[in-house]
């Protein structure tokens, strides 16, 4: 009994991913076009939101990633027909605070801090808003399984970063027949780095006895000055490195020249589906695979979670936006130049319409 429980726990910890076939299956699963899986029971969104309005504060509007998520929120609000305001910020705490104060002063019902805005930075203002009766949530900030939403938040729609990290590791494992020598890079100060990093390294450690990894922390502000030399010198030090795995694909612009200058054959596999990285994949040979997610879908899923909170429905804590594998074979579907929303299909639009009983 005791042993069967331990075995069950072990299987749950590494669900049938202990070999190359399992790694291949994982990659194939996420290479198929995303399908819509309802995050909860259908509800009449128009009736529920008839007298409510929502306020979205992105990390920064200067980042197309955040702008694309915001657009998803705006589209969802138009579909349902409620008032939503997308606050303009430039990654400055003063702008975030001003946004929260504006939302409170203008009687909004919910404030969503989306796309990496750390709520801890504005905790006093969050608590002040809550005291005024405003709900405060976050979308696409924490990992859905390994990180906990802080108690001071009213809710959060989180991302499954662990699966994304596992897909990246599985891809490298499959391509090398279990002989991965990977350099993993990430900025430790960003919230999702830890789950992504640990998932990549943990998957290889658990499933690939001949694989090896080395991790280097490069803060975002130092990507240009330290990222390139760090990769370059790591490749010089160990020319057998065959994969560079930055947890965020925007680092690729500094890694590609490092690989070229060092004369390495290493490939880049990463996460985010950032358009210029997909362009690099289409036009070159160094960026090999990228795990993306439709950001318009993320915005709509965040709206769904927020509406459920406002309407007293069963809470949704995990975004239903699936990860999707881009390679040379399908990168053309992302557009030329690539975008944050193309290539994933639009099954989510009808999916949310049905879920919100709009037709």
């Amino acid at each position, binding site marked *: 009994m005791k042993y069967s429980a331990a075995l069950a726990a072990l299987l749950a910890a590494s669900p049938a991913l202990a070999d190359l076939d399992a790694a291949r299956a994982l990659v194939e699963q996420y290479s198929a076009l995303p399908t819509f899986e309802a995050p909860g029971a259908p509800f009449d969104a128009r009736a529920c939101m008839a007298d409510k309005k929502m306020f979205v504060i992105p990390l920064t509007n200067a980042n*197309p990633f955040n702008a694309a998520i915001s657009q998803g929120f705006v589209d969802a609000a138009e579909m349902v027909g409620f008032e939503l305001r997308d606050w303009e910020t430039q990654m400055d705490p003063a702008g975030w605070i001003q946004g929260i104060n504006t939302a409170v002063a203008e009687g909004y019902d919910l404030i969503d801090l989306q796309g990496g805005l750390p709520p801890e930075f504005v905790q006093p203002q969050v608590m002040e808003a809550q005291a005024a009766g405003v709900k405060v949530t976050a979308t696409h900030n924490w990992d859905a399984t390994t990180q906990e939403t802080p108690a001071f938040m009213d809710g959060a729609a989180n991302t499954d970063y662990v699966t994304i990290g596992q897909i990246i590791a599985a891809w490298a494992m499959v391509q090398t027949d279990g002989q991965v020598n990977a350099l993993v890079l990430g900025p430790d100060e960003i919230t999702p780095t830890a789950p992504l990093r640990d998932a990549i390294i943990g998957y290889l450690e658990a499933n690939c006895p001949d694989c090896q990894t080395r991790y280097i922390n490069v803060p975002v502000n130092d990507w240009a000055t*330290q990222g390139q030399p760090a990769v370059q010198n790591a490749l*010089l030090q160990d020319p057998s490195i065959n994969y560079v795995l930055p947890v965020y694909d925007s680092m690729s612009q500094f890694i590609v020249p490092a690989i070229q200058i060092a004369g390495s054959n290493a490939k880049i596999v990463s996460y985010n589906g950032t358009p210029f990285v997909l362009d690099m994949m289409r036009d070159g040979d160094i960026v090999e695979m990228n795990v993306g997610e439709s950001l318009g879908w993320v915005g709509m899923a965040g709206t769904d979670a927020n509406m459920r909170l406002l309407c007293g429905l069963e809470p949704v804590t995990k975004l239903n936006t699936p990860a999707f594998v881009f390679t040379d074979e399908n990168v053309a579907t992302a557009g030329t130049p690539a975008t944050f929303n193309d290539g994933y299909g639009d099954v989510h639009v009808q999916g949310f319409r049905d879920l919100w009983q709009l037709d």
Partner: protein
Amino acid sequence: MTTPDPTEARIAALEAKIARLEGAVAPRPAPDWKHGAERFGLVGAWVLMILILGAFRPDQMFAWNSYATMLGSNAMVVVLTLALIVPLTTGDFDLSVASVMGLSSMTLAVLNVQMGIPIVPAILVVLVVGAIVGAVNAFFILYFGVASLIVTLGTGYFINGVILWISNSGTIAGVSMDLVRAVILTRLFGIPIGFYYALILALVLWYVFQHTALGRRLLFVGRGREVARLSGVNVTRMRTGALIASSVIAAFAGVLYTGMRGAADPSSALAFLLPAFAAAFLGSTAIYPGRFNALGSVVAVYFLSTGIMGLNFLGVSSFVQNLFYGGGLVIAVAISQLIRGRRPMD
């Protein structure tokens, strides 16, 4: 037979007088060996650092490939440092150089990728854009008499906004492979060719500063504007030229930066401002101690990047690199002050 330029003669006489006065208040002239130690101290420290780091990581620190890689990948830092030392020589700080580098990089990507303009005309356009920024800096500094530090801080910030605007805040990839080939993919003695562009530029600046009347006038303006003006030097023209040259060279650094990545992003170039300042001041302690000079700057950039490379090989955490650059800047300025006899800086 040419007639001697009376202004040149006055400058030469004044320089001699200043040298006599400096000699009267300064300690005795240093013996030759000490002067040599000052000139080549940084080079010696560089070699010593290689030997020390090599004791821990001989396979990497004594491999030519490591240095070929490092020399090529820091070409744009050398060029950015050279951009800084031109106005520093005339006594002006240009804090907008990194922004100009970013503007040039992004403008090049927009012109080439989004507007389909061939790479050579696009490069010429961005160099002109650099010249315009330099002229704007010069106008506010010289016409209104505002400190260069403030003006270039403001124009730099303004340019950062322009970069976000023209790029729609995104990174643009897919710049012509011709440029990438012309910067890093073509190699000479294993070193990406971008390094040689930086080296040629350094040699040109060295020649101008050390062997031409223009170079002497620039230096003279930096040492004392009023004295230079009274001696007949057109100080405004010299400072204007230096600021425009600075921005054009910074724009060229942006071209190299784009060529290195085949892409341009809105913000990363700004991170090179401090390394460039650190190298400019550290470079002023070498080869021609007490002067911002091109060859010293080249040595300083590669001294610092050798240190970074060694720290990488040793697996040291990335924050140590900040300590290295930041500490390097302060120590370099302190050493250059010692060389100047601890006279207050302008």
